[in-house]
């Protein structure tokens, strides 16, 4: 079950000609796919396009009605490979995955897809994950478009522009027999707005019809000598065809006057940020009307020399706004100018920082710097010569704590890492490699477990060098998502085949949790269109790993600890794998909360657990927090002059997972934790018994109180 349900929004995807859609970017993209007559869609989830996959999953009925095939691909490579359907068949297809990491995984398929070329339009929608809130932003998608020779679309970040680019992108792909990439940045995936809809289109040829009438053409197979021919075809035919199409359709845009001594070239996705800077400098109105010529690259690859050079005509200074590094666009445009013998001065990096997000402040400074150099007379007097001192605001950088994302309240992964910390206290520090997924939060305080992550499904593989063993065994951690994405082959067969002596812990939370709780092979939910309920341990047995320990309740910290200790100390040769399974608490709560509320309402007996701390027993050492880090387990200052340090405290958000009690027990911390189970709708006998017990207890208490002093409040 995905993090967010789009069942209600999916109805908007049925809007027809001339109606208005209002909503989020990802839904607009999905609608545009349907309007473009796609025959198949697929992809792999991951921020920022996770929700696009969730929308597609929730729209399966509608897709079915239109004869569109939907696949939740095993990984990005599988998704890219699926585009093979557009090689021989005139069927439009689209897959989606997150930016650089997705194209990295998919690059084999992308290279071959591009070499073969496509008959039907093929589009990869890439969620570019850069800037604030990004998780994987160490590279750009841009060079993948360059190396595989796919056209890269980077539309202005408003719904009408994005929707139009989906449609134009398919046309471009078909006109140039080349797959295209549509890049949407992290915030434009979730930007809201409106656009005029068109009718959804059934594909002219469905995949079902195509597979009934198979086609092949060996000239499209990537084998020498045909691949040599593809290479020539790419530059001699497909590239010029693409340029012609881009020019004739006017995919890149011009704003502002034609003649001016300066101009700005901007990636489509950065356009709004640029206009904001110009607005702040008094050089543009709220609609983006400006006195500075702007050339918007809605297609950032290929860059069209003729169009760019004609933009530069008569200008002395041109600024390139290109986020990220290296500066591929700026370098290419510079070489166009040089070859044309132009005297235009090109600005870009230098005014802009080489690396990092182009935030509002960065953009403002760089654009202002450019205009100061190129046309200082355009700046309003107040900006040209500021004469007022800024107010000094106290520096809070030492005060405000960082707040990175971490494990959720009640997360079943927390006890696994608490157990690992306990083992670490006994056996010392171990070499630990991590993977991609929620479990990577363990690298942060309070756990600080794991020192490397090489990629999705590559956790155990990243320990390959250490797998020969030594005085201590290496430990690898991988999630169930990573296991099925790529881990089974790249990590576990690798371990088995090389007779690894290492330990691997598979964190099985029943979903691809970090990407939003999508179902995977080992999910325990029934999914009408996917094969779930395939245990990981069965797959491990299948590849010959025999030392497998299945733990079905990770919250049993003592058992977790003992199992990890056993894996690290046993004499058994070969890989040692622990499958630690408990359901992702976010998903569990989403699933169970409504059911529980309904059951209570119906009068059924329900026990609702929550934890608490006896504040007068807690001594304020916070050892429990260092072994937990649960958001609901916090500290508070007591109104007691004798106490120096704040004591532990559990708030309303506690879901009663039991981790803190288990940790307090396994680590022998302190007796201040308690669990309170509130029994809703108790049985009559139960209530009578409880009342009787309460009377006895209360009698004992008052008997003691009568013989001693009782204090209330604080002196």
């Amino acid at each position, binding site marked *: 079950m995905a993090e967010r349900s789009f069942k209600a929004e999916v109805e908007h995807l049925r809007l027809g000609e001339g109606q208005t859609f209002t909503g989020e970017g990802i839904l607009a993209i999905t609608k545009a796919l349907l309007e473009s007559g796609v025959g198949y869609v697929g992809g792999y989830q991951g921020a920022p396009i996770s929700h696009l996959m969730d929308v597609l999953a929730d729209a399966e009925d509608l897709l079915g009605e239109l004869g569109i095939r939907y696949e939740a691909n095993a990984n990005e490579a599988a998704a890219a490979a699926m585009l093979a359907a557009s090689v021989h068949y005139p069927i439009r297809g689209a897959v989606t995955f997150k930016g650089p990491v997705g194209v990295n995984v998919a690059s084999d398929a992308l290279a071959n897809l591009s070499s073969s070329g496509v008959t039907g339009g093929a589009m990869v929608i890439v969620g570019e994950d850069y800037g604030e809130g990004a998780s994987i932003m160490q590279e750009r998608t841009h060079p993948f478009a360059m190396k595989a020779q796919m056209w890269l679309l980077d539309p202005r970040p408003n719904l009408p522009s994005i929707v139009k680019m989906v449609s134009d992108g398919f046309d471009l792909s078909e006109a140039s027999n080349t797959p295209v990439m549509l890049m949407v940045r992290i915030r434009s995936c979730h930007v809201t707005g409106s656009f005029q809809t068109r009718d959804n289109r059934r594909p002219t040829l469905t995949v079902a019809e195509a597979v009934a009438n198979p086609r092949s053409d060996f000239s499209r197979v990537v084998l020498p000598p045909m691949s040599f021919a593809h290479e020539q075809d790419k530059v001699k035919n497909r590239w010029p065809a693409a340029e012609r199409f881009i020019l004739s359709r006017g995919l890149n845009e011009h704003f502002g006057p034609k003649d001016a001594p300066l101009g700005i070239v901007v990636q489509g996705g950065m356009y709004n940020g640029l206009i904001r800077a110009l607005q702040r400098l008094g050089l543009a109105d709220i609609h983006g009307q400006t006195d500075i010529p702007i050339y918007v690259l809605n297609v950032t690859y290929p860059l069209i020399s003729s169009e760019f050079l004609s933009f530069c005509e008569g200008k002395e200074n041109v600024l390139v706004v290109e986020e990220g590094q290296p500066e591929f666009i700026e370098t290419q445009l510079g070489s166009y100018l040089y070859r044309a013998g132009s005297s235009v001065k090109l600005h870009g990096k230098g005014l802009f920082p080489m690396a990092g997000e182009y935030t509002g402040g960065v953009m403002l400074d760089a654009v202002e710097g450019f205009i100061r150099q190129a046309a200082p007379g355009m700046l309003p007097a107040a900006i040209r010569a500021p004469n007022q001192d800024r107010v000094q605001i106290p520096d809070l950088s030492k005060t405000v704590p960082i707040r990175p994302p971490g494990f959720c309240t009640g997360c079943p992964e927390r006890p696994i890492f608490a157990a690992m910390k306990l083992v670490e206290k006994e056996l010392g520090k171990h070499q630990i490699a991590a993977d991609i997924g929620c479990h990577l939060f363990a690298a942060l305080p309070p756990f600080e477990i794991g020192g490397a992550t090489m990629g999705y499904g590559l956790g155990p593989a990243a320990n390959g060098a250490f797998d020969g063993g030594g005085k201590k065994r290496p430990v690898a951690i991988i999630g169930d998502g990573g296991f099925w994405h790529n881990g089974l082959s790249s990590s576990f067969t690798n371990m088995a085949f090389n007779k690894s002596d290492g330990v691997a812990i598979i964190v099985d939370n029943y979903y691809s949790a970090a990407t939003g709780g999508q179902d995977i092979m080992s999910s325990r939910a029934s999914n009408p269109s996917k094969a779930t309920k395939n245990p990981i341990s069965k797959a491990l047995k299948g590849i010959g790993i025999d030392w497998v320990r299945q733990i079905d309740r990770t919250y049993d910290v003592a058992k977790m600890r003992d199992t990890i200790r056993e894996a690290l100390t046993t004499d058994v040769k070969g890989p040692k794998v622990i499958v630690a399974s408990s359901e992702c608490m976010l998903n569990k709560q989403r699933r169970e909360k409504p059911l529980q509320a309904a059951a209570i309402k119906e009068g059924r007996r329900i026990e609702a657990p929550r934890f608490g701390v006896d504040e007068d027993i807690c001594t304020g050492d916070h050892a429990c927090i260092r072994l937990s880090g649960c958001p609901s387990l916090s500290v508070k200052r007591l109104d007691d002059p004798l106490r120096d340090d704040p004591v532990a405290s559990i708030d309303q958000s506690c879901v009663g997972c039991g981790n803190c009690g288990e940790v307090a027990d396994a680590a022998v911390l302190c007796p201040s934790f308690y669990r309170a189970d509130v029994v809703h709708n108790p049985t009559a006998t139960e209530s009578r018994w409880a009342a009787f017990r309460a009377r006895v207890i209360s009698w004992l208490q008052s008997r003691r109180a*009568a013989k001693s002093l009782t204090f209330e409040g604080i002196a």
Partner: protein
Amino acid sequence: MTIHNPPQIIKLAILAVGGQGGGVLTSWIEDLARANGYYAQATSVAGVAQRTGATVYYIEMAPATGFPPVFSLAPGAGDVDIMITAEMMEAGRSILRGFVTPDRTTLITSTHRALAVSEKMTPGDGIASSEEVMTAAEIAARRFIAADFDALAIKNGSVISAALFGALAGSGALPFPREAFEAAIKAGGKGVEGSLRAFGAAFDAAGQSAPMVEKPVKRLKVSGPARLLAEWQALTARVAALPEPVAELALPGLRKVVDFQDLKYGAEYLDRLGKVLAQDRAPFALSREAAKYIANAMAYDDIIRVADLKTRAQRFARIQKEMRLKETQVLQLTEFFHPRAEEIIGLMPAGLGARMDVPKWHDRLNRWFNKGRRLRTDSLPAFLVLHTLGGAKSWRRRTLRHQQEQAHLEAWLATALAQPYDLAVELIKCRRLIKGYSDTHARGHSKFDRVVAASLKIATRDDAADWCRRLREAALKDEEGKALAGAIQTIESFA
């Protein structure tokens, strides 16, 4: 000079932490703007907030004129009209990131704290200073509206997003009437009643814009048989005769030790304090600290104390209140105990306990008792066990643990009092390091011993007291005592 924007676009940013409903608040504001003839655009980075991180939601709006404006997708430093922060340190973060500027920004914040992991995990007190953020906010914001909107929301049976929406309406920073805001809540259709209540309360609070600090004044109430009350009065009379700064802590100290053991123990506490006072002079810093830490040392954490606290009527009442138990419901209470040989031997009479304090008996007792015990204190058998243990106060004075604690206390006091005045004060304060149970307790003891030993090495230096304070603070920084080890190394270099 500050840069002026075209006035037509209103820029509003929200900084929220996980689970605060930042998304809901954003969509209310967006709907509000659209319903009132504005173009509006919202953006967010999904998924971060849910996993307890801090994230920005951003909304821009401008009057609809038939031609849509170009909106930005992210807030820019120095370019935000309204900044809403759903937590105090997030207000600090918004200032730090330059989103709050004196020329234009209305800052609306909730003053409550959701502590970051780094603040919680320090063995001492790692909580960041809200006062610093308040001071900065007064300077940085054009208008500053601060109240505990979280408490306000909870009080009205709702969540903070509704209260912040009310504060936004109450601030008058958006050109829409109150009814329009309420209409947006009603259109949302979920938990409308509670949301409207919280909205209304926050609307009023924002209008007043005075920080709402309600601190309940707690008074000490004592009850019990008349004879004991009279004895208690006699002891409090002794406290009243102490110099004021000492009495201020001696009264809670007395309460603590009497509550821990009995009135006789309370008298012993005052005797000990009296000895310290005899060597003291105004302003009585030494006795004041002694009043606090002797009480803490005398009321050590043993099984008897834990069992007593766990079985008191006040505790049951408190938990029932916290869990909001209704008449028709039943409460089950589970305690997590893990007795070890040390605790059991500690309960033995001193002589026997000392003889048993050998590895052979430790192993044996650990084999018999050392495992996690879940006790249901709402059931009679478990309650009786704990109730009986908790009542064993007359036994306590004979136990090995008591003897050890007394010896440690006397040695600590004697060592401290033999030092120069300032160092003596600091050494008394070092008692703060001893806390926790089992390993934590042992670690605390070891840190205490190291700090005291290192301080004594340089006792004759003028800055010995200052070093002692630094060592103690270092010891509270991290669990393993890395900071402490570093500080001790420095001392050894010149000792």
